[in-house]
């Protein structure tokens, strides 16, 4: 198993090294600035995106659907990690030379505010392009809307789900309904019983990742920032409640803190945990555990207790497609996105079974494919459920400094878990963000 892990790590870092080195070997399908990475014009669209289990099959399927009506259309997909897409964008925009950029690129929703405000010259304003934005969930659209203008076509839905092993729950005497529409105190009680009876943690997560806290914050519509985009961490009672719940979970032994992403994934696949609470894109990883088919089910997340406006719904991640200003044939790109992600229910139906990719395109939710019971998930119609969750997700204040805020909190969580005082840790996080904001 160790050798397998080492081989896998070699393969993983092989592709890591490949995609971050812009002068990668010829014929390497990872992003190469010279070899097919940039916009070509004509009837070809070049797209940068990541995740061969999720985004790439989706865009390729969109390409196939579009090609059926436009025979001389070609789609080129260059696999590029999300951080690399952003780094390459910064490099191109800073140097003033946008010619290395592709036609269409995927970007995490929370990065839009930052990048559009700093490098507006790299993005195409899609507001009056003919794409019908009213067909998308408003909460999702708000991420890629800057100063009232639309810059992104929403793609995947980041609604948070709680995914649990029904067999482990059963061993502890619970069903999935016992975890539905509850609050965190009830959740921790159930988790303690599960730990006692089965020896398994309820949840896991990276120690330096603030994901859990951010999900909890957004479930009550709260945020690290106020409406003006200024950091509002000190005196933020919602934040304090989230941190104290997190601390309690770790201390009671129901939340397993790991050090990095690989360990998090292996805690799920290695069955050290009963389940996980994360964006619904985690289903792709879970469905890789084929021999546990039929033993999983999803539900919503627990809600906060003291904070007002608490709900059982939140969001983590999700991304949208944007057209770069380097696109040589912008009409083609706009028409492509309009006909596929912003217009084709068939596309969303086709990508659903293979990728579990759930769109934010509201008409798609009415289709039959979304309402099919899924055998892997104890015959729940999970896709319809997830779209339902996303429609109930509260929006919250975002900011160009969103990631700075996130990272600062992620760092301070580790200090808090090592025994630092919560108030001074939060104050440190806020001063770190204010430092970054003040030039």
């Amino acid at each position, binding site marked *: 198993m*160790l050798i397998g*892990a*080492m081989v896998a*790590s*070699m393969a*993983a*870092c092989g592709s*890591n*090294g490949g995609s971050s080195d812009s002068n990668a070997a010829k014929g390497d399908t990872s992003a190469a600035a010279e070899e097919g990475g940039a916009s070509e014009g004509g009837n070809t669209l070049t797209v940068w995106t990541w995740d061969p289990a999720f985004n790439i099959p989706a865009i390729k399927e969109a390409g196939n659907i579009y090609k059926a009506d436009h025979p001389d259309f070609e789609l080129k997909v260059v696999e590029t990690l999300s*951080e690399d897409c*952003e*780094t390459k964008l*910064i490099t191109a*925009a*800073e140097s*003033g030379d946008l010619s290395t950029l592709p036609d269409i690129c995927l970007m995490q929703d929370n990065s839009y505010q*930052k990048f559009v*405000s*700093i*490098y507006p010259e790299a993005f195409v304003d899609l507001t009056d392009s003919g794409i019908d934005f009213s067909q998308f969930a408003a909460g999702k659209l708000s991420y890629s809307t800057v100063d009232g203008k639309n810059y992104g076509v929403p793609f995947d839905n980041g609604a948070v789900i709680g995914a649990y092993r029904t067999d482990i729950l059963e061993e502890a005497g619970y069903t999935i309904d016992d975890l539905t529409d509850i609050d965190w105190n009830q959740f921790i009680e159930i988790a303690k019983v599960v730990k006692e009876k089965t020896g398994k943690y309820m949840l896991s997560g990276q*120690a*330096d990742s603030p994901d859990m806290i951010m999900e909890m914050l957004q479930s009550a519509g709260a945020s690290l920032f106020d409406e003006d985009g200024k950091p509002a961490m000190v005196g933020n009672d919602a934040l304090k409640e989230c941190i104290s719940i997190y601390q309690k979970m770790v201390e009671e032994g129901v939340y397993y*803190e*790991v*050090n*990095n992403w*690989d*360990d998090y994934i292996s805690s799920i696949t290695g069955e050290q945990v009963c389940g996980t609470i994360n964006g619904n894109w985690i289903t792709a990883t879970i469905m890789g555990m084929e021999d546990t088919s039929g033993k999983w089910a999803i539900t919503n997340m627990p809600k906060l207790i003291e904070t007002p406006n608490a709900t059982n719904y939140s969001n983590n991640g999700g991304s949208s497609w944007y057209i770069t200003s380097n696109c040589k044939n912008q009409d083609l790109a706009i028409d492509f996105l309009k006909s596929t992600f912003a217009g084709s229910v068939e596309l969303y139906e086709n990508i659903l079974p293979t990728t579990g990719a759930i769109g934010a395109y509201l008409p798609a939710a009415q289709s039959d494919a979304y309402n099919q019971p899924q055998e892997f998930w104890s015959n729940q119609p999970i896709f319809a459920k997830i779209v339902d969750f996303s429609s109930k997700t509260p929006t919250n204040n975002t900011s*160009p*400094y969103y*990631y*700075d805020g996130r*990272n600062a909190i992620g*760092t*301070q969580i*580790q*200090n808090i878990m*090592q025994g630092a005082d919560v108030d001074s840790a939060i104050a*440190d996080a806020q*001063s*770190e963000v204010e*430092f*970054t*904001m*003040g*030039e």
Partner: protein
Amino acid sequence: MRGLPGSSPNIICEGGFEVEPKKKGMTLVAKQKAAGWTFLIPASAMIAIMSFFPMVKAFILSLQTGKGANMHFAGFSNYVRMFQDKVFLRSVGNTFIYLAIQVPIMLVLAILLAQLLNNRDLKLRGFFRTCVFLPCATSLVSYALIFRFLFAQDGFVNNVLVGLGILDQGYNFLGNAVSAKIVIIIALVWRWTGYNMVFYLAGLQNIEYSVYEAAKIDGANGWKTFWSITVPLLKPTIIMTFIMSINGTLQLFDESVNLTNGGPANATITMSHHIYNSVFLRSPNFGYGSTMSFFVFVLVAILAFINMKVGDTRD
């Protein structure tokens, strides 16, 4: 010589010496100087354009501030700001800890290994030398990831320790500030010892065997020979490897990113990693990034200078 066709008549001075008159065109000395400059100029020009010019531009950039392409001059405010950046100061501290602990251990190990492997009677010398040098040939990213796997909670090291009964359950090496730093130091020593050992081996080859024979005749044992003869004769090599190690350690990046990702709560983050984070992961302010980079440059220059002065055995 006098009388040969084509030569100008030599001048005879008082005392009878013949002196060649200054020929028109270049003298031999001038020709040699010209040849020297011709060889130097292309390389110097390239260094000036590729290294010095960017350094100057980086300094100018560090005097500016702003997001993205909206830069405006701000004097030395970036430098003032840098000294208030808590995370940056932390990263300086971390980097100096690595410098102070890892470099001496590594160099001492390298010199000892070089001495051992210089022994003419040792069998399979070539094999051992290859083994020690091989780590340097690995990719920085690969080896950092492998070390990360090795020291994970359920990694190989923990499995061995638990199996031997030394620990009850896996120790979270990468989750504790001190142990995370130790893991990085171990990784660095593993990787770079071979590199420095090769330099010392080359230096040792230059010491004549007769020196050792003389020492043996005088009754010196192995240890005394090592300290009183080998090390002083290796001084130039030691200085060089020391400067190179300082340079490399101050600019440490790959291990911080791939092994610990800055470590639990910035406990292992290095200066270069923080610069990268500030510019590419957070909101990009290239002026500020330049400032921090310039600071690293000044540090390396000062330390290298001190090193050379201390080690200068001339005069």
